[in-house]
């Protein structure tokens, strides 16, 4: 209850007269593996933006480890252990992969407040960055500029950055989106191997991924929570199939 890693209470957000998030309640315990699914335009990414602080809610609260972070900035929430990936990669494209990681770790540990010592003098930062890259098989790409990598590898860098923040709560926005199917297993292996202590929320359309990964599913429809529960319950739920799968019927991936 009070030990939830992430809690969302009565979150509301409207753009003018259009409500995009309606009275959402959500709770992620430590080690959660929750999938957030719903038809297009349901407001899944908006919800993630509200949780991370990229967007301000009209009303409601967000709590991280029991502390009310509703009024804090996006950066402050990140410092407190909330990390996310974006649906479209948000990377430092003109920098090398290694620099992308070193910068993340540098900001995390406050090294970037240092104007005097050289960035390269913190060997520990470089080593940790390489460790992260190693676990994602990206070491060979360390010195390549991000924009020179194929999209699938860039997506891995996106996840690497989120992991390098050493988060307690991780929000993944369609991590396999845009990745060619030949490479998507790389992403999925990473997601499956995530630290069991991290609370993870993943927005996904691909039911393969959802079933492989999720212990709990939240269904979002038109900005409101439609229903929540274990995967088997959700998939057996006729209403869910009607509202969600009817829309998804023409998408290529396998679904129930």
């Amino acid at each position, binding site marked *: 209850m009070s030990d939830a890693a992430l809690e969302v209470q009565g979150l509301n957000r409207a753009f003018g007269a259009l409500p995009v998030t309606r009275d959402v309640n959500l709770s992620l315990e430590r080690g959660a593996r929750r999938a957030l699914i719903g038809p297009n335009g349901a407001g899944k990414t908006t919800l993630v933006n509200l949780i991370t602080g990229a967007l301000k809610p009209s009303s409601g609260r967000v709590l991280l480890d029991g502390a009310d972070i509703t009024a804090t900035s996006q950066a402050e929430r990140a410092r407190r252990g909330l990390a996310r990936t974006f649906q479209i990669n948000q990377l430092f494209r003109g920098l090398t992969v290694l620099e992308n990681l070193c*910068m993340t770790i540098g900001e995390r540990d406050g090294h*970037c*407040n240092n104007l005097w010592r*050289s960035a390269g003098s913190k060997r520990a930062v*470089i080593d940790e960055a390489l460790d992260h890259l190693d676990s994602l098989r990206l070491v060979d790409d360390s010195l390549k500029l991000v924009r020179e990598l194929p999209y699938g590898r860039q997506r891995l860098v996106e996840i690497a950055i989120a992991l390098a923040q050493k988060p307690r709560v991780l929000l993944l926005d369609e991590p396999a989106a845009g990745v060619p199917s030949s490479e998507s297993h790389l992403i999925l292996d990473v997601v499956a191997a995530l630290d069991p202590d991290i609370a993870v929320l993943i927005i996904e359309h691909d039911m393969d991924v959802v079933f492989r990964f999720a212990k709990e599913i939240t269904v979002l429809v038109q900005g409101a929570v439609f229903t929540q529960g274990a995967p088997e319950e959700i998939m057996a739920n006729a209403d869910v199939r009607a509202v969600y799968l009817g829309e998804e019927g023409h998408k290529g991936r396998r679904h129930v």
Partner: protein
Amino acid sequence: MAASDTESAARIVARERAADYLVSRHRFQWPEALPWLIAIAAFFIFPDRMTFGGQVLIMVLFALSLDLILGYAGIVTLGHAAFFGIGAYTAGLLIARLGYSEPISTLFAAALMAGLVGVITGWFLLRYRGLTLLMLTLATAIMLQETGNLRSDLSGGYDGLPGLTISPLFGRFDYDLYGHVNYLYVLGVLAVVFYFVRRIVYSPFGQALTGIRENVRRMHAIGSPVHRRLVTVYAIAAAIAGVAGALFTQTNAYVTLTVFDFDNSAKVMVMLILGGTGRLYGAFVGAVVYMVLEDYFSKLSPTFWQFGIGLLLVLAVLFARRGLLGLFEDAGRRLSKRKKP
């Protein structure tokens, strides 16, 4: 078993290579000595152009300060001359109104004043971007200029404050008519400031600046205190521009309100673009090329010069977006590709 051994050995080698790149990136490389050697050589080769030489070095310093904001942090402003002007007038007023003419401590005072204004204005203005920020910074510079005009009794207005001679350097070196002492003095200041700027650029803070430039959204998401970083670099850049302004007053023994002109802000931006932003030495290349060309062509015909610099700008944006240094890098890369069999 053997396969995975070589695999892990290869990975270790790759790791070491990657680490080495970052660890040794900040070390001085021999081409970096070139601009300094050239500057010293100029002292001996062109002894009769040392007043001009001093002006060029001052512009290098000014452009260097702008590079921190524009090249590294990626912030576009139109009012950088404001800080140059504040520094120039700090030096001018210290001599003219307070009779204080010790040169080096004046530089510190100028840096402090300009830096202070940088912190205050930056804290408010750096929340904005794009046209809004351009207009706000431009308006701030103009308002400072207008304030000076209002109190022309203090500032000397557009006629300026003449006769601002400084005391001998270190108490010993008196300024000579040919600007020799002045040139070496400015070169010395430039070298010292450059050392600090270079350290900043290669520090984790400098890294964060490039992060802000490359993707500010990502920076927020990884917890970077973006606004604080920007105000910090803005204040540092302002302080350095202030030093350049003070040197200007000391070199010319004269200062007028035209130091605040938009023309000045535009000029330094053009210099930096010509040389190449975000490359530390772009300021050197750009300022030298610009000043030398201006000196030559505007004597020929000021109209022709204005046309030429306009044309150069248009061509630079269309074909050489990364400036002269960018062109050199491209050429160098093409040459080394051709060398490989």
